[in-house]
């Protein structure tokens, strides 16, 4: 069953990979491919059957996303898909009221409503627990002011989960609110140009006396950080399962290239300088696979996986950068030409050590958990 999910999106490979180079150059969100994704059923994988989902758990969903990463050369599209699953659907399913679930889960898992979650602000993302956007209570509404930055899908999103401050400074004053994009007082900025994941639009949000009914709060007041923790576990596991699929494909392509490209009368793969690089790529990919698999099982079982998640996120994202660099080097001049897509992989890999908590923050977390 789990293995079947790896192949879930494979029949749509051709459509998912159409015009990837041109769309990357344009930095445009591929609306047509989003429709293809909707058809694949991938966005339904992790949601409850009572709302129209396929009802799969964490590890099965990881496998489906790994398959997407393997099949789909458009890492930006895959990144937006992962954000779609975790940003609003996951917290709504776990913490939302029955009414909110009934109203929104079907349109989220069909992909009809594109979603985003907004935590990071201009003042910083690493210190997320001290975010400043505030929501003050006014009768049966919250009035939100402030702004957000680096929000994936924001320029094309229909529905947002906002992390705002309703209480005192620190993690225990955070609350999450569900907001439709068309709500007066909410403005999403245009897509910001960036080095990689260029088809996944990222942008700002600003709130000017944005009124949100209390009934659109997800979870209790003051539980925003617990919701964020629930989401981040899945964001890391789902998002970086895509990365694992991408790295596996990259490794296979590089092995094939090293076997067929000849210099000095021999395949370049027969030179130790090249083959050892590929051996290192293989070890990085398999290390990533093992950490993801073990951590997925722990999270699914409800075990304390705090250290495992920080390690997994760091190991997989850094393996992605290094294997992408190795692939460029082994492909020689072709590695840097945009027509082959190898350089795109490298550009796409860079942000992974930054979003979902930077490598430095993950190492801090591991050190803290080790009592340092």
């Amino acid at each position, binding site marked *: 069953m789990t293995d079947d999910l790896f192949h879930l999106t494979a029949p749509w490979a051709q459509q998912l990979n159409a015009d990837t180079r041109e769309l990357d150059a344009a930095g445009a969100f591929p609306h047509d491919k989003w429709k293809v994704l909707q058809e694949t059923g991938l966005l339904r994988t992790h949601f409850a059957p009572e709302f129209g989902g396929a009802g799969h758990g964490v590890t099965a969903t990881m496998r489906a996303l790994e398959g997407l990463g393997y099949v789909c050369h458009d890492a930006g599209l895959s990144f937006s898909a992962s954000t779609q699953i975790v940003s609003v659907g996951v917290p709504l399913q776990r913490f939302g009221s029955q009414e909110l679930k009934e109203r929104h889960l079907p349109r989220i898992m069909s992909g009809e409503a594109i979603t985003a979650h907004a935590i990071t602000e201009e003042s910083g993302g690493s210190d997320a*627990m001290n975010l400043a956007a505030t929501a003050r209570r006014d009768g049966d509404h919250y009035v939100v002011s402030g702004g957000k930055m680096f929000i994936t899908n924001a320029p094309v999103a229909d529905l947002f989960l906002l992390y705002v401050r309703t209480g005192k400074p620190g*993690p225990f004053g955070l609350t999450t609110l569900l907001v439709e994009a068309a709500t007066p007082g909410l403005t999403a900025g245009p897509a910001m140009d960036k080095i990689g994941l260029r088809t996944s639009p990222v942008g700002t949000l600003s709130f000017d006396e944005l009124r949100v009914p209390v009934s659109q709060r997800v*979870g209790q007041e003051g*539980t925003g*950080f*617990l919701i964020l*923790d629930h989401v981040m576990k899945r964001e890391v596991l789902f998002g970086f399962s895509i990365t694992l699929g991408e790295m596996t494909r990259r490794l296979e392509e590089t092995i094939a290239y090293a076997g067929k490209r000849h210099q000095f009368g021999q395949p370049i793969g027969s030179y130790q300088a090249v083959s050892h690089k590929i051996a290192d790529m293989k070890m990085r990919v398999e290390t990533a696979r093992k950490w993801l698999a073990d951590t997925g099982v722990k999270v699914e079982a409800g*075990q*304390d996986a*705090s250290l495992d998640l920080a390690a997994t996120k760091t190991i997989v994202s850094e393996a992605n950068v290094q294997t992408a660099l190795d692939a460029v080097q082994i492909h020689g001049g072709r590695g840097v030409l945009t027509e082959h897509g190898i350089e795109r992989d490298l550009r796409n890999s860079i942000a992974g050590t930054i979003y979902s908590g930077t490598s430095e923050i993950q190492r801090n977390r591991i050190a803290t958990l080790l009592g340092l």
Partner: protein
Amino acid sequence: MSTTDIAGEIRAYVVGQFLAGEDTTDLTGDYDLIDSGVIDSLGLVRLLSHLTRAFDIAVDDIELTPDNFRTLDSITAVVEAHAPVRAA
């Protein structure tokens, strides 16, 4: 498990994980672990994982509000309310 056993287990976990090496003789059941900074956001997440495993509680059954986890007494009450009934 009796209330005393539950309270003892929770206290041992909190002291062992968050107050190791500290003098905890004055740690009372109503001491505010959150406002005092003993348990931060990461700590609360870990405490939750521990409770669900140690007392066999489904995490989805617990009402996740910081107030439920503010003191040793409130944590004990949450566990008592949700832990499966065991034969004496």
